């Protein structure tokens, strides 16, 4: 039970860089290898495209980015630094509009957290709760994953850690009923934020998506504007299927923003670029580890530059 251990404080970019260092280094080495003192020709562009593909940017997005890049720089003598900088710049440009932190203003603000199985919903809720508790907010958690074994217990442990009460019903209970009760309590007892956990569900399961819709319908009986935020938690390890996930969740339950988890591995989360380009959904935060303070605001430039292997000298964003 040492999930919150190792809470040494560092700048968020430092943490992110540490988390991303492995992937960025590899990517950077690759690009450096390709571009040292060479003219930018088609072969190099192809290789560059492959590097982007390997970062999970997807075949389409990679091709577009490289085409744009080639248009402006084809035939020029380029240094690795320039190449990386320019690409980071283009990626940051795509990401910039979606880098929006989550700052709930409603009282109580209802935040519904959804996603496929194993994406990291409960852990993300724990981290968000911690963040908002530190800001002095009163946070209530609702253990809406009544399906998976011990999901309730998992959230309860997080509740104890961060000092947030958890609304609980028995296993197999109706998540909509639980959400309703939780909102009633949040209003009655003057909580600032209600975070509702939900069971993981594949976006392809129509019945489970209906269940989620019901949660929302029931919440709206108490507050027509609820849920004020509907966060989709995405695993950075996920490949191109993330596009299908976002598309379906967005159309079914009106997702308002994304949290991308597990960015501390070698997975680069490049699909985020395609997601930003296609869906324009805000990316509120990224997860770079298992402990409670491993949730970071998402910075477009930081993410893009870090992805391109730039050193901490860029740590101003």
């Amino acid at each position, binding site marked *: 039970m040492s999930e919150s251990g190792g809470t040494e404080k560092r700048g968020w970019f430092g943490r992110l860089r540490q988390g991303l260092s492995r992937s960025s280094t590899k990517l950077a080495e690759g690009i450096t290898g390709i571009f040292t003192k060479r003219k930018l020709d088609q072969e190099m562009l192809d290789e560059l495209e*492959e590097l982007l593909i390997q970062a*999970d940017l997807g075949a389409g997005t990679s091709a577009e980015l490289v085409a744009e890049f080639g248009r402006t720089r084809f035939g020029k003598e380029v240094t690795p630094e320039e190449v990386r900088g320019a690409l980071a710049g283009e990626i940051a440009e795509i990401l910039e509009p979606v880098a929006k932190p989550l700052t709930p203003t409603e009282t109580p603000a209802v935040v519904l957290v959804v996603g*496929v199985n*194993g994406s990291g919903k409960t852990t993300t809720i724990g981290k968000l709760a911690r963040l908002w508790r530190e800001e002095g907010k009163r946070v209530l958690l609702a253990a809406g994953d009544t399906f998976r074994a011990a999901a309730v217990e998992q959230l309860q442990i997080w509740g104890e850690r961060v000092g947030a009460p958890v609304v609980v019903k028995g296993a197999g209970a109706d998540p909509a009923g639980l959400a309703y009760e939780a909102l009633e309590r949040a209003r009655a007892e003057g909580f600032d934020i209600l975070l509702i956990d939900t069971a993981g569900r*594949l976006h392809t399961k129509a019945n489970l998506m209906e269940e989620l819709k019901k949660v929302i319908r029931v919440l709206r009986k108490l507050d027509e504007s609820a849920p004020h935020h509907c966060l989709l938690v995405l695993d950075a*390890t996920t*490949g191109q299927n993330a596009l299908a996930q976002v598309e379906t969740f967005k159309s079914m339950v009106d997702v308002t923003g994304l949290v991308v988890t597990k960015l501390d591995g*070698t997975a680069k989360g490049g699909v985020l670029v395609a997601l930003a380009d296609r869906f324009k959904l805000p990316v509120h935060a990224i997860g770079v580890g*298992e402990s409670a303070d491993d949730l970071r605001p998402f910075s477009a430039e930081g993410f893009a530059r870090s992805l391109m292997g730039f050193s901490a000298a860029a740590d101003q964003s």
Partner: protein
Amino acid sequence: MFESLSTKLGEVFDRLRRRGALTEEDVNAALREVRVALLEADVALPVVKEFIAAVRERAVGQEVLKSVTPAQMVVKIVHDHLVEMLGGGGAPGLALNASPPVPILMIGLQGSGKTTSTAKIAIRLKTRERKKVLMASLDTRRPAAQEQLAQLGRQAEIATLPIVPGEPPVAIAKRALTTARLEAYDVVLLDTAGRLHIDEELMAEVASVRDAVKPAESLLVADAMTGQDAVNVAKSFNEKVGVTGIMLTRVDGDARGGAALSMRHVTGRPIKLIGVGEKLDALEEFHPDRIAGRILGMGDVVSLVEKAAETIEEEEAEKLAAKVAKGRFDLDDMAKQLKQIQKMGGLGGIAGMLPGIGKLQKQIESAKIDDKMVRRQLAIISSMTPGERRNPDLVKASRRRRIAVGSGTSVQDVNKLLKQHQEMSRMVKQVSKLGQKGLLRHGLSALRPGGGFGPKH
């Protein structure tokens, strides 16, 4: 996305088909689409490149068989090679031949589905192999992880090792084995904490668990939705812990599962099992040909082509072709087609082989076409006189009653069949305009509901 890919490949292959010859250019054009398809299916780039190179070598210069179009030829080569890379024939089972208790170690990233998979495998071993199974959670990191396995054990009536708070993973593993030996368990499933493959400390920890228990199987549990990173994950786990097999989870989603190919390729280890749902019995063996079709996004087109070629006897096809050329299609011909369907493994079997399976199967369900219906329809036709079969217009009210009684069906069923026949023969007339060569292809597509065969009412 799934569908648009099939379409894209279809377009390329259509172009090939029209040209009617398989040149290097054709192959390259097709392989460009295949490359994108594989990448969109999340097959890792290095694996894609090797794959494409191998297929190009095989395809260019390949003599195109008379009976198939060049397009089908390319599809077949791509598909066959993919199946081969995924492990060829059948899935090897779990290695349980060691002396009991046989330890099985479950490893993987966070959230890949280890704990659920552990319970699924336990149930399978218990019910199918009559094994006495003990499960133990070595996940001391994620809150309530041990409790999760304990709850699953209670649900599934599988024994779990009692939880001792604060006990480190290696000690839990040893205690599990000791308990299993004393209480005569056949198999011990060890569920470990999710860990990043680059987390040296945790990888060392799981390696020491491995050294302590010497597992007969170390199953890498991986999410079917995994992207390009699948190669890094599989490689690291294989190097640092040793992987004996792969379990792919969430195959019930719509991810195309390219990670399966990547991981199989970099580890050389077989994919042994797949998870296909949240329920604890949603566990299946891995079939390379199914995943191959899925990765390519085209169903099992190749086997369909092959099966059709095997079963449709040339002679009959020619006879039918001659009739169709004249725009004629009587109930005898329909009976022959229905028998072909039966030979090919029934409608369910065929539907499973067609692209866009999910959609099609739904349509079939809603159209209530099933194999029983095919049998019933054959019974109706065989209750007719030869004259009636050649000239369905003869079949009026009293004859319909007689046929219904004779075949043990109702007049409505007879009506339905006649209506279907009308639709089919109308379509056949259209096909006949395309000439004899087009017959087999369109004959097959006629099986699709909406293509003229299924009842439309």
